[in-house]
């Protein structure tokens, strides 16, 4: 949002009551884009209707600010305060959203003349929010978590009160001295702000945020806090039903859901789990000799029921997470794992069983019921106690007052696995791969427990909250997400970017100058001509592009092979004359160094080319705005590795359950990643860039691109050879170099208050005439609706139509 000027008070955009269906929205910028206005209208519609929606709007058109300003206005105008839960993907996006919210609230105060009672907080991991001098120095997040727990757990405090000499965290303990619902003054707090405030008042920012959550109006955090059953249980349980949930950058949400419920176990993990179980056993014997009463207490509570063991939890507010259905939480723990020592032996037996399974030397794929029946046959472990495994372990760890929780991580993993496999019959698959690759001879088995159904993890979210908004820059085709995640929408809309000038040029290049095809198809990808043509394409675009060039390959493997061949062909030497060459690697630190160098090279005018991978880190979170990215090239369609067994299983599941064909899903997935890559270069309305899709197969997949790219992709640009593409690109860049001021977009792609009113007036007139004018939709930046072809159904078919069916039914019976 850095494009527009900060709030300009003499031109306030107070959209009046007539604008967005009786709601006064304070927009913190003097201008609003038409698509932003339409976006807010649709949001309002969704909130009023009380349902879920899917909205696609290109990045760089101010999605976040429109979202926030509308929802905050909605919150503050309505009597019952619906809380906003804003989920985003990365830390930097969360921070951006917090800053935006802060700006918005400042503007509101300024406009309204008084400060509203409002709290907005962000939540991130302990690692980012810790203030404790020794703990915060740790680098790994899990160690910080474990150390923090050892300083802040309830029993540590009890020990302290008993006069024992234990270390505690001052920052955490100070929180208890404050009023529990007013740990931090109202307002919007960014992470930096929280840290500073915490340092001043000597209070822990992490726990402040956690504890203040029920009293906040806006919460901004990562997806995982809502989707991952283990975390969602602890963090999101107090959220009430009428919250408004927003998933921003949601194009990968199905993968997040699946990851959150999938577990991979290795032999090493199982060995560690055994060690963990042995440790637990030792601790139990220790405790039996010193403090048998505590174990007895736990036992007594478990006899009553699991929930009674943790009275602090509120029954009604508890978020039913997929790992533990509600009926399970209210039921008592089965008798055979009630005693601590029995439970540990139970775990050991289960781990041993898994170890024997690992010894098999061929690939196995198994459904949970089959696994359970074999398990029962071999070890007499029933399904029911298995379901309680995870909760029972948590309870035991709490009772034993363990501090070094990170040691029990693998055991926890096994217990979660046990619970999941005993809970779900469908939607999951167990795949055992004994060898790393097809050619390996030394077995190194991995047991994948994969979730195939993205809907399972997100189901409680859709069921629990009345309005869930799924939004991103690339969600096309829009109906795919409701199908995959199994929910119904009230609004589905795709917006484009209204532009005064054509500021980006998508092109599909399907052959080289020598008329040979360009493709990353597996059979052809290593052909000499294909690689040479890819090389020529790179050389030409490096020649003509002023600053940064970003190139995306389908996989690391292909990138490496192509680069080594280019080296032999002398392609890299030629590119080197024009641009600095940088390469993304799987290593995060190397990549960030490469990125930094790339930025420096672009800043000082030499320009650089970054070769990276379509599913890598660069393609997801890094923006190449303005001169950092003037050209983006997709070398080949970024399909997933289709030989993966997990992917195959998922494809089969999608076909059988949701009727999504394999090819459809693969191509949808490839195209959403391609679109993500393309979207990296255009980050705003005054940005411009060239998008090259270099593969002949892209020609058939145009409809799967986001609407805003589709509409800019002219037919004449869909079948180009390299030299044609070069001439188009040159013409485009010449056009872009014409001096252009922001003023030109006034009234067309950026509205002032007056423009907005004019538009509304026009709309009202049109509405009276009773036709929905397509021009009106275009002016609001809505993508054209997909033409629904209605097949006229014949009155009567030759067999006598519907009446006949009844007769037939009668005969059948």
């Amino acid at each position, binding site marked *: 949002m850095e494009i527009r000027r900060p709030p300009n008070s003499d031109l306030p955009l107070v959209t009046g009551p007539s604008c967005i269906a009786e709601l006064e929205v304070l927009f913190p910028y003097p201008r609003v884009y038409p698509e932003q206005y339409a976006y807010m209208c649709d949001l309002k519609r969704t909130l009023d209707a009380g349902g879920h929606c899917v909205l696609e709007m290109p990045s760089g058109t101010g999605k976040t600010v429109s979202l926030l300003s509308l929802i905050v206005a909605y919150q503050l105008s309505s009597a019952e305060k619906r809380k906003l839960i804003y989920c985003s993907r990365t830390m930097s996006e969360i921070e951006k959203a917090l800053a935006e919210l802060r700006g918005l609230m400042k503007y509101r105060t300024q406009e309204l003349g008084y400060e509203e009672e409002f709290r907005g907080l962000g939540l991130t991991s302990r690692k980012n929010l810790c203030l404790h001098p020794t703990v915060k120095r740790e680098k790994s997040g899990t160690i910080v978590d474990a150390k923090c727990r050892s300083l802040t757990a309830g029993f540590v405090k009890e020990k302290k009160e008993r006069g024992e000499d234990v270390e505690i965290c001052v920052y955490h303990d100070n929180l208890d001295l404050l009023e529990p619902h007013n740990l931090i003054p109202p307002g919007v707090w960014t992470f930096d702000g929280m840290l500073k405030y915490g340092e001043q008042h000597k209070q822990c920012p992490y726990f402040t945020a956690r504890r203040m959550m029920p009293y906040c109006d806006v919460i901004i955090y990562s997806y995982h806090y809502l989707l991952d059953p283990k975390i969602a249980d602890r963090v999101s349980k107090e959220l009430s039903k009428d919250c408004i949930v927003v998933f921003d950058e949601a194009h990968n949400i199905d993968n997040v859901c699946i990851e959150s419920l999938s577990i991979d176990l290795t032999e*090493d993990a199982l060995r560690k789990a055994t060690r963990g179980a042995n440790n637990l056993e030792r601790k139990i014997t220790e405790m039996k000799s010193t403090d048998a009463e505590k174990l007895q207490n736990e036992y007594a509570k478990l006899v009553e029921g699991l929930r009674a063991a943790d009275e602090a939890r509120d029954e009604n507010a508890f978020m039913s997470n997929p790992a533990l259905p509600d009926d399970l939480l209210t039921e008592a723990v*089965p008798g055979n794992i009630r*005693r601590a020592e029995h439970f540990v032996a139970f775990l050991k*037996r289960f781990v*041993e069983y898994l170890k024997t399974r690992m010894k098999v030397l061929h690939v196995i794929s198994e459904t949970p019921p089959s696994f359970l029946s074999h398990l029962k046959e*071999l070890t007499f472990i029933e399904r029911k106690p298995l379901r309680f495994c995870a909760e029972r372990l948590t309870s035991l760890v709490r009772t034993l007052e363990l501090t070094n929780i990170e040691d029990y991580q693998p055991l926890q993993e096994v217990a979660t696995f046990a619970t999941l496999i005993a809970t779900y019959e469908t939607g999951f698959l167990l795949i055992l791969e004994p060898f790393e690759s097809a050619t390996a001879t030394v077995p190194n088995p*991995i047991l994948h427990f994969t979730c195939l159904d993205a809907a399972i993890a997100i189901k409680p979210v859709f069921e629990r909250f009345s309005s869930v908004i799924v939004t991103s820059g690339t969600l096309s085709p829009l109906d795919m997400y409701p199908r995959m995640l199994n929910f119904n929408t009230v609004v589905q809309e795709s917006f484009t970017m209204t532009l005064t000038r054509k500021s980006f040029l998508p092109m599909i290049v399907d052959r080289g100058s020598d008329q040979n095809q360009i493709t990353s198809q597996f059979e052809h990808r290593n052909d000499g001509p294909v690689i040479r043509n890819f090389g020529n394409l790179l050389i030409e675009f490096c020649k003509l592009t002023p600053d940064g060039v970003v190139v995306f390959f389908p996989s690391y493997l292909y990138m490496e092979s192509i680069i080594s061949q280019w080296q032999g062909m002398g392609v890299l030497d030629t590119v080197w004359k024009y641009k600095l060459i940088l390469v993304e690697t799987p290593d995060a630190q190397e990549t960030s160094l490469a990125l930094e160098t790339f930025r420096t090279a672009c800043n000082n005018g030499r320009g650089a080319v970054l070769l990276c991978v379509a599913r890598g880190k660069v393609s997801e979170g890094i923006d190449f705005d303005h001169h950092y990215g003037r050209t983006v090239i997709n070398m080949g369609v970024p399909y997933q590795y289709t030989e993966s067994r997990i992917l195959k299983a998922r494809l089969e599941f999608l076909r059988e359950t949701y009727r999504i064909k394999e090819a459809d899903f693969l191509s949808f997935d490839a195209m959403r990643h391609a679109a993500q890559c393309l979207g990296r270069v255009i980050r705003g309305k005054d940005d411009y860039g060239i998008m090259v899709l270099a593969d002949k197969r892209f020609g058939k997949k145009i409809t799967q691109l986001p609407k805003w790219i589709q509409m800019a992709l002219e037919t004449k640009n869909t079948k180009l050879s390299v030299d044609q593409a070069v001439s188009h690109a040159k013409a485009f860049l010449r056009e872009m170099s014409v001096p252009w001021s922001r003023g030109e977009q006034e009234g067309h792609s950026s509205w002032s208050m007056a423009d907005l009113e004019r538009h509304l007036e026009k709309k009202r007139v049109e509405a009276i005439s009773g036709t929905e004018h397509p021009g009106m939709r275009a002016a609001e930046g809505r993508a054209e609706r997909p033409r629904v072809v209605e097949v006229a159904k014949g009155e009567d078919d030759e067999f006598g139509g519907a009446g006949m069916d009844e007769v037939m039914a009668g005969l059948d019976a």
Partner: protein
Amino acid sequence: MSRLASRVPGASKRLAPDEDELCNVCKSSRYLNPDMRFLVNPECYHKMCESCVDRIFTHGPAPCPLAGCNKTLRKARFRTQTFEDLKVEREVDIRRRIAKAMNKQESDFERLIDYNNYLEIVEEVTWNLILNIDVEETERKLRLWEEAQKAELNPNATFRRVTDQPEASQLSDSSHVVLKKGGTQRRALATSSGNTSTPSGTEESGKRDTGFVFQGLKKRKLPPPEKAFDPFDGWSIEPQYYALQENHNYQWLTTYDSDPAYFAGGWQTRDYYSRMMEEAFGGMCIFLEDEKVAPLGSGDDDVGTQNAANAAIGMKDVVMDDVF
């Protein structure tokens, strides 16, 4: 959930060092003999290689060759181990034995808590056996419980007792079976039959030692005694609307009684009566409307005549005792 996808290089410690690789009896190692297989015997769970088992136990039972272990082992019972941990291997064997005896379901109990208590007791019994605490007492109880269960569960046994078949036939039956069996089995059966005969006496008096007592265990309901087999499934061909008389005393009928032309084929006069009555009353109280209403769709009623029969039973006012 964080995926633990990272494969640790060389994580496979399948070929674990030393003690796994060495046969404790002959001290040969896998290094010299890569095809070596290890076997265990569930008597003592001592591991030895296949060739040692062949060498020592081929000529019949022998004591375990490991020092300090005096168990007598037989070759037939040696097997490859399923689990890496021999303790678990033994535990599972014990569980197998217990699962046979104690296999109550949640539905067998009145309340969930009773079931959970039951599970806990089972677990404790298992652990007693595993940790060798009170083995004899536990074994005794288990045996008692098993027998009690058998007595209760075997419906055939109870059925025989209920129908008061002559005691002698039962005895002769069992003795007949015993004669066919070997000596040891005969002894076992004798003791068991002795046991089962005592409960039949004591069960009426109420209490007997079942080894364990579980609260909230539902009384097992005996299945209702089977009725005699009825090939027509309750459907009778007895005439409903008339009574067939033995003899009609009419002059013109008596001639037929004595005419051999009529009874030579084996027919009696009564058969003629019966035939005639049936023909006269055939279709009585069968209403075509009812037949039609009973639609094809309602598949529950298996035959159309059933409806007619039902309707006929409803019409009680038609009283026809004797038409003649």
